[in-house]
Structure formats: structure tokens, C-alpha cells
């Protein structure tokens, strides 16, 4: 392991961290702008041009607010809750392929922090641990509403994880690998997985909404029933971490959707670009294309949020257990038959 390799990876990891944070920051701005657009309002426009400095102003406000602690015997767990939520939201980006490769000073730089054999399972593992942030925080708040909310969030995430995993199995049967890098590379040209796995994509999309606690699945922070949900007792930057973690999760799950089903960094004519314009230019364009896809999915999340009202809790459980799981199993069987017949 030479020092250049360590420098390269460190720079790359810091860059991913910065990009995730900036994307999460500007998602809050975009959310307000999209909401305003859909409701025929103007949205934030005071701080900076078009309200572009609004996220910074919000951050300043959260930092400057009073640190309030509820009357809880579990002060430590109360602090740990948002920390877990934030760190698990950031950990998933380690295995994401952000692009193919670049050639800098004669070195081939793979645009991925690490390419492990079980990348997709790693993502699932981190997602399943992420629920502890909400559960521990909600419980340590020593508040019945927070506890109800965290219990809701936990049962929702556990139920939708099953359908999510089953929808991925059908995809894995096609790709034959768990490495996100290879899945991305297999979709070169217009060979996007969404054309082969439309049902799987739909199930995965719905489950991604549920896993990130976004409307119509945001039962955990249902204001009319639970005040503010699991972060009722939180204030200042701890509250900011919870809100930020949600947007970071949204960014990461959009990235997963783009990588798994929408061809990752591939775009039509990429091979032509590599041959005629150069590897670097083609792959930088690939990164841009990936970010356009991610931004589209982030917009999609917001679009849904301001269009569809929230479910009732029994409807949510009904959808998860009685519709999505059987549908995912049927999808696996149909995929298996298709692979047997056509290959």
C-alpha cells in the first residue's frame, strides 16, 4: 500500500463527505422551493439570491439555539440518538460508485471509496442499524409521544426492510453479483435495470420512501397525533442532526436508486466519448449524469411529499405485509422463470 493510494482515498472520502453534506444542506432549500412551487408560493427568497443562503442561516440558527435537556435519566443515550442517526446516514456512501475511473498523473483512480464483495449487503446492514438512532433517541426523551413515534418508526422500518430485500433478490438473480461497482458497469449503454425489473424498481422505490421516513410514510413524525414525533424533546443542533440525517438518507437512497436501476454513471454514447474525447472527460460527464439522476430522485421525493397525504398506520402495515411482500415474491419467481427461458 503506497502513500499515494492512502492520499487518494483520503481525498476521495473527504470529498464524498463534503458532497453528501452540501447535498443534504441544499435539499432543505430545495424542499422549501419545491413546496412553494407546488403550492403557488414564492418560498425562501430573503437570504441571498433566490434564498440560496437559507441553509446557512438555518444552520447558524440551530447552532445558536439553547441546548435544552428534558427531565430524563438517560442523558447519554439522549445525546447518542442523533449521533447514531447522523453517522449511519453518512456511512452508506462508502461503497457507492460515483463514477467509473479517472486518470490523474498516470494513475487510474477508481471513483469509489471501497469496492467490497458484499457492497449491497453492507448498505442493507447500515440501513437496518440506522433505526437505532430514532429508537434510542425517542426512548431516552422520556416522553410518551416520542416513545410511540420511535416504536412506530421501528416497526415500519422492520416491515419494509423485508420487501426491500426481496425486491433486491430479483435484481441480484439478474446481475449475479453483490458488488455495486459491477452492477453499475453492467448497465453500460442503455442497458438499465429498470427496463428489466420495473416491478422490482417500484417495490424498492416505495420501500425507500418508508425507510427514509418520508411522506406518505412519515407516521413517525405525524404532527396531528404525536406532536413532533421522536424529536419532540430535541432542540438546537441535536434536532438539526435528526433533520439533517433525514436529508442525507434521502440523498443516499436516491444514489442507490440511480445506481441499481437507472444505469448509475452510464449515459448513451459513453463508449464513443471514451474513444474520441478521452477517459477523463467522458467519466467526469458520467459523474455529472449520476448527479442529475440523483437530483431527479430527490425532486421526486419532494414531489411525492407535497402531493400525497400520509397513510393511516393500519394502511401502512397492510401495504407492507399484504401487498408488497407477496408482490416481491411473485417478482422473484417471474424473474427466475424468465432467466431460465431466455438465457
Amino acid at each position, binding site marked *: 500500500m503506497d502513500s499515494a493510494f492512502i492520499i487518494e482515498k483520503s481525498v476521495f472520502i473527504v470529498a464524498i463527505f463534503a458532497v453528501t453534506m452540501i447535498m443534504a444542506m441544499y435539499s432543505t432549500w430545495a424542499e422549501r422551493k419545491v413546496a412553494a412551487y407546488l403550492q403557488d408560493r414564492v418560498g425562501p427568497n430573503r437570504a441571498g439570491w433566490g434564498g440560496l443562503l437559507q441553509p446557512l442561516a438555518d444552520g447558524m440558527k440551530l447552532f445558536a439555539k439553547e441546548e435544552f435537556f428534558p427531565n430524563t435519566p438517560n442523558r447519554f443515550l439522549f445525546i447518542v440518538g442523533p449521533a447514531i442517526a447522523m453517522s449511519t446516514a453518512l456511512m452508506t456512501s462508502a461503497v457507492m460508485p460515483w463514477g467509473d475511473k479517472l486518470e490523474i498523473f498516470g494513475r487510474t483512480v477508481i471513483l469509489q471509496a471501497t469496492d*467490497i464483495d*458484499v457492497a449491497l*449487503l453492507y448498505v442493507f*446492514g447500515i440501513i*437496518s442499524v440506522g433505526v437505532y438512532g430514532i429508537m434510542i433517541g425517542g426512548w431516552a426523551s422520556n416522553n410518551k409521544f416520542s416513545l410511540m413515534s420511535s*416504536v412506530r418508526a*421501528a416497526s415500519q422500518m422492520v416491515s419494509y426492510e423485508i420487501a426491500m430485500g426481496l425486491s433486491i433478490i430479483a435484481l441480484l438473480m439478474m446481475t449475479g453479483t453483490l458488488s455495486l461497482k459491477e452492477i453499475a458497469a453492467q448497465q453500460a449503454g442503455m442497458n438499465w435495470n429498470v427496463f428489466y425489473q420495473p416491478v422490482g424498481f417500484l417495490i424498492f422505490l416505495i420501500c425507500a420512501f418508508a425507510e427514509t421516513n418520508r411522506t406518505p410514510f412519515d407516521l413517525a413524525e405525524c404532527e396531528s397525533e404525536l406532536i413532533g414525533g421522536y424529536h419532540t424533546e430535541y432542540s438546537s443542533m441535536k434536532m438539526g442532526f435528526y433533520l439533517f440525517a433525514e436529508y442525507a438518507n434521502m440523498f443516499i437512497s436516491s444514489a442507490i436508486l440511480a445506481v441499481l436501476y437507472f444505469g448509475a454513471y452510464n449515459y448513451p454514447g459513453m463508449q464513443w466519448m471514451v474513444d474520441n474525447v478521452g477517459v477523463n472527460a467522458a467519466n467526469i460527464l458520467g459523474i455529472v449524469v449520476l448527479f442529475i439522476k440523483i437530483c431527479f430522485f430527490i425532486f421526486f421525493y419532494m414531489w411525492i411529499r407535497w402531493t400525497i397525504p400520509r397513510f393511516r398506520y393500519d394502511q401502512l402495515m397492510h401495504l407492507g405485509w399484504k401487498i408488497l411482500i407477496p408482490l416481491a415474491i411473485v417478482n422473484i419467481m417471474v424473474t427466475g422463470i424468465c432467466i431460465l427461458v431466455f438465457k
Partner: protein
Amino acid sequence: MSPVLITFYFLAAFTLATAFLTIYSKNPIHSAIYLVLCMVSIMGHYLLLNAQFVAIVQLIVYAGAIMVLMLFTIMLMNLNKEDEVHKPRITRLGAIVVFILMSMVLITIFINSKTIMGEYDSTGEDFQSIKVLGKVLLNEYMVPFEFASILLLVAMIGTVLLTKKEKDQK
């Protein structure tokens, strides 16, 4: 000392400490959280052995699924110190007997097991890759694998049946 050895000692100490704290903490939620940490540190042991797949499955199944459900139930029950059932003396006696029997088995295993003296030979095959694992599992260990899956299926049907029956009696 090599970095691997240092990591191992650190992980082993962490695993043992969290396992003891699981038993000794008064608050059931704290116990559950210590158990989660214990599970995650066992994942670290698997990673040290270069078994990526087993490590990730440990994280998903134990830390991600089983412990979430356990924590969930404990939170819903909201156990207090007053609720703690007083254990009769016979239970404690039974626990001691079981512990002694269990330690006898473990001690015999440790005495009889031989330490690996020979060098590891490199077969050129990447045994941590899931492709190799899948091939071994579905060729050499096909029958036990199928039996395990049938066992899981039966357990699942049993669970559904138990919840159904309760509904009918009401």
C-alpha cells in the same frame, strides 16, 4: 505485537465487557443496547477472520433485525423495577446446575481441542467471496442447508398459527 493482534485484544475485551454489562445492568433497555454493541463487536471478529459475508449477515440479522425487535418489545412493555418477578429458589438452583454442566462441556472441548500448529497453505481460492461460499453451501452442504430452510419455514408457519389462534379465542 501486530496491529491485527492489538485489534483482536481490543475487540475481545469489548465483547466480553458488553456481554457482562448486558447481564449486570438493572435497566432492561440498557441491557438490550449493550447486547447490540456485543453483536456488533462480534461482527468485528468475523471481519478479522476475513469473513465479510458472515460479518455483514451478523450485522443485518442480529444487530439489525433481532435486536430491533427485542428493543421494541422491551420499550412497549416498559419494564420497571417493581414489575420484576421474584424468581423462586428452584429456578436459581436450575440455573446453577445448567451453568456447571455447560462449563464442563466447554472445558472438555478446550482440553481436547488441538491448537493448529501447521502453516496455512494457500489454495489460490478466495474463500471469503460469496461465489465460493454459495458453491460450497449448495454442493457439499446441500442437504443440511435445505433442512435448515425447512426448519425456518416451519418456525414461520408456527408463529403465524400462534397469533391466529389467539384471535379466534377472543
